[in-house]
């Protein structure tokens, strides 16, 4: 296996695990920002000195700098998908808690309900 394949697979797995385990803590946010920063730096470098990025790509066994950038993008995108899924889940749990609390507070209490129930359907 090529060095780049090993490296990329490792990075994909690590990013995946880190982001899946992420509990929205400051440390994980920092890691995400660092990765994003690295990608931005790579992108800028590829614009300014395409040959340098290609040289870097060659070192790890990739033909062109553009390909290296693409790999980086794929990883960043995967990270984005996972982290936004996590964030959406978290938000959904918050909304659920709020809606549940509201629903329960607006409903008649079980004691009131027992009082009303009597022994037949409610007539109105």
């Amino acid at each position, binding site marked *: 296996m090529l060095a780049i394949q090993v490296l990329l697979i490792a990075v994909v797995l690590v990013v995946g695990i880190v982001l899946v385990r992420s509990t929205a803590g400051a440390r994980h946010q920092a890691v995400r920002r660092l990765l994003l920063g690295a990608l931005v730096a790579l992108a800028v470098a590829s614009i300014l000195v395409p040959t340098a990025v290609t040289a870097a790509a060659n070192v790890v066994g990739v033909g062109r700098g553009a390909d290296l950038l693409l790999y980086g993008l794929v990883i960043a995108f995967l990270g984005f998908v996972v982290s936004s899924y996590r964030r959406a889940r978290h938000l959904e749990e918050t*909304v659920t808690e709020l809606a*549940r609390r509201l*629903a*329960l507070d607006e409903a008649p*209490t079980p004691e009131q*309900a027992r009082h009303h129930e009597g022994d037949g*359907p409610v007539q109105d």
Partner: protein
Amino acid sequence: MTTSAASPTPSPPRPAAAGFDDTWVVVPLFCEATVIAGVVQGLREQFAHVVCVDDGSTDASADEAERAGAVVVRHAVNLGQGAALQTGIAYALRDPRTRSVVTFDADGQHRVEDAAAMVRRLEDEDLDVVFGSRFLDRRTELDRLKKVVLRAAVVYTNRTTGLRLTDAHNGLRVFSRRGAQTLRIRHNRMAHASEIVHQVGRSDLRWAEQPVHVLYTDYSRSKGQSVLNSINILVETLLG
């Protein structure tokens, strides 16, 4: 018809609520206006306390349920069946007299006498959870694809939870107060069925399965889950 292993004596017809004053029946409700009144009335023949959790229905479901004699708890927005179940269970637990909680589908596919037999069994055998199962006997007729998917779900759930269930996705269940308190349903949509089994598996709750008859009418079939939805359930379960 009822083949309850525990209570072979058929229950005589009783006036409302005579036997089950300590039981709340939780019915998650979403757009079932045409059938919900009949379901609630059927339940109220044996269970005094029925709470419908209206999950943001856009039709007259909530009013119909209320008119038929259920307490209605209204979600301001649609959250999903799992969320509605958890809300209904939370409501039942607010009642200090609650000793057991039944979950019952709104589309009329469950039978009230099955629910009553399960509550009696819970009390007689001092259990915490009684799961209804379509597959303990041969009464329930399913089409082949649905059967295959449900069986696969059972195999998966049994592998991952250590429980030995024959039907992991049946909406008819009975919980003791302690059983209901143990539940924390976090999956708002359909993955909650496996989640409930998981949580029971992790706990020290005493559980049993009871054969029930699921009535597949054209109505419930048309409202039922698409088989494709099992993929969503699997993904939601795996991703947490």
